[in-house]
């Protein structure tokens, strides 16, 4: 009997968990269930396990069990208090070498991307970045199901499915919000296994002298329920004032398509799309956005999409639940008025 381990890196900074960690536990559970039958026939065990590094973060390991981890490997050490590439990748390399996971998922955040490439290289295995679909499937010539990792290529124009045949673990990075978070189960039971780090402060080879917290423009569009995005159809940077007004009325945040960011109309933090953020809000408004594939791949999982565009043939209408053909400078002010009126009627 062997144990087939589906691993998730549990990302945290200063004790704050990045929600992508829970999203990935949800995906890992689905992947594990896809091999359940095959494993049962072979007498193998299938487990979902989290990997957590940090200092005084045991509470996160306990939460991870509620989100579906059967077991969490916890490496708790003062050297790991702040994320640094060397001690983190070396610590994970050691535990991965010890337990030999079959699949290893990491969030495609700035931290996760810094880490994933280092781990994959140190383990000498394959890594597929920014996957939008993951599945355990049959591959010709393979004795077991393999991870089929699908990612957009060439600006989202093509979807490529990548497999890693012989090397383990099969690694993938996944952006936040590509998959939904699973429900938290306070009754769930699991095990926390402590591991020790074999890297000293000297071996960390980096010293963080200072943290600078940005004053302006720290918009967090990834986890907002409402996003109002503007595109080239705004005609200029001033158009974002109207977008902001609608976003404020709806209690949401401002997003943007890539051309506006490239033109300097608004900062990169607002960019939605393959080269920006992936989002899945409850309501997404796309105003003056034509709907290039690279934008659509970043927002098409939103629950409800409203597109406003002058051009009846704009591709954005293909993904919109409601498409309003018209001048955004006429439609949006009317929409703001309507929202305010409805809000007052309720109050």
């Amino acid at each position, binding site marked *: 009997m062997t144990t087939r381990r589906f691993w998730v890196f549990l990302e945290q900074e200063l004790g704050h968990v990045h929600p992508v960690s829970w999203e990935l536990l949800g995906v890992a559970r689905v992947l594990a269930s896809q091999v359940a039958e095959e494993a049962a026939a072979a007498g193998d065990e299938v487990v979902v396990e989290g990997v957590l590094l940090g200092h005084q973060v045991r509470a996160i390991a306990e939460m991870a069990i509620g989100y579906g981890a059967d077991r969490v490997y916890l490496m708790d050490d003062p050297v790991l208090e702040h994320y640094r*590439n060397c001690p983190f990748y070396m610590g994970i390399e050691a535990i991965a070498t010890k337990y030999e996971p079959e699949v290893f998922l990491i969030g495609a955040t700035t931290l996760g991307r810094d880490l994933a490439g280092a781990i994959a290289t140190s383990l000498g295995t394959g890594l597929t970045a*920014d996957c939008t679909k993951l599945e355990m499937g049959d591959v010709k010539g393979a004795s077991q199901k393999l991870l089929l990792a699908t990612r957009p290529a060439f600006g989202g124009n093509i979807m490529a499915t990548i497999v890693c045949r012989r090397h383990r673990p099969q690694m993938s990075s996944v952006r936040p919000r590509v998959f939904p978070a699973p429900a938290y189960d306070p009754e769930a039971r699991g095990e926390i296994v402590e591991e020790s780090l074999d890297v000293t402060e000297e071996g960390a080879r980096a010293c963080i002298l200072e943290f*600078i917290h940005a004053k302006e423009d720290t918009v967090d569009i990834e986890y907002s329920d409402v996003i109002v995005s503007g595109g080239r159809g705004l005609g200029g940077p001033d158009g974002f004032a109207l977008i902001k007004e609608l976003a404020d009325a709806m209690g949401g945040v401002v997003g943007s398509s890539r051309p506006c960011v490239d033109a300097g109309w608004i900062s990169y933090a607002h960019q939605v799309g393959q080269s920006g953020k992936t989002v899945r809000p*409850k309501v997404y408004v796309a105003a003056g956005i034509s709907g290039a594939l690279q934008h659509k791949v970043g927002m098409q999982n939103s629950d409800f999409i409203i597109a406003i565009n002058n051009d009846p043939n704009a591709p954005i209408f293909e993904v919109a639940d409601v498409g309003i*053909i018209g001048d955004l400078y006429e439609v949006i002010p009317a929409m703001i008025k309507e929202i305010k009126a409805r809000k007052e009627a309720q109050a």
Partner: protein
Amino acid sequence: MFHALVAIKQVPDTTNIRIDPVTGNLVREGVPAIMNPYDAHALAAAVEWKRKLNGRVTVVSMGPNSFITTIREAIELGADRGILVSDRKFAGADTLATSYVLAEVIRAIHEQDPLDLIFFGKQAIDGDTAQVGPGVAVRLDMPIVTYAVAIRAVDLDDATVVVERKTERWTEVVETPLPALLTCEKDIAEIPFAPLPDLIRSLRYEPEVWTMDGPITFDTEMIGVRGSPTIVYQMGTPPLPEPGEKISAREEGIEAALAFTFKKAQEAGVLQTMIGGAQ
């Protein structure tokens, strides 16, 4: 003397990529090839520090012969030496095999003429993986600072560099020992206008070409398709979503269009969210 190396890649200008509407295939013809923009900014930073510290910049690029134009562009922007790493046997490399070849080349250069800083762009715009830089750092056993937005200080006597790196949460000021590898955001440096002597030099510059035949040796198990654990199993066009319903504000009036929108929102259960009353 300060010695920096910059790894550069030639990429198709992805903002110009088109799909043939009939065949669904990628149209490569007429798509301009450019230096990966993040690499260009990384190069600008390397050249800036070369001028401050009176040093040298070497650029390395792995790819077919057509990449020579990009190496010439790097010379124009102030690089002193350009190396093209090119061999058919390298073709089909994934990020692991690519990082192996680049690491072997950089190691050999470092042994000849010790390096202080190695620059990569934060990612290439054609693949967006951001995996090769960290991979090379691991292979060379060098510290890495990713998402670098500014270099505050390079101290060659103490062999340290102080770099600002921007993450999703904050900006970190990190001190790390040299030699170190940086992967750079565009903020790292502005791309300067090329001085005339560099421009003239670039026109006639012939980069060194390193192949499987020398000057260094590569393990054939580690390169190309053989050295790549991942393979592309399937390619396809993204599934077409169900088209939504359209209403013309021009023909039916704005009021009707909005009434329709709010009705649909109600059916989808998001009306409360839309009017800012989400709980």
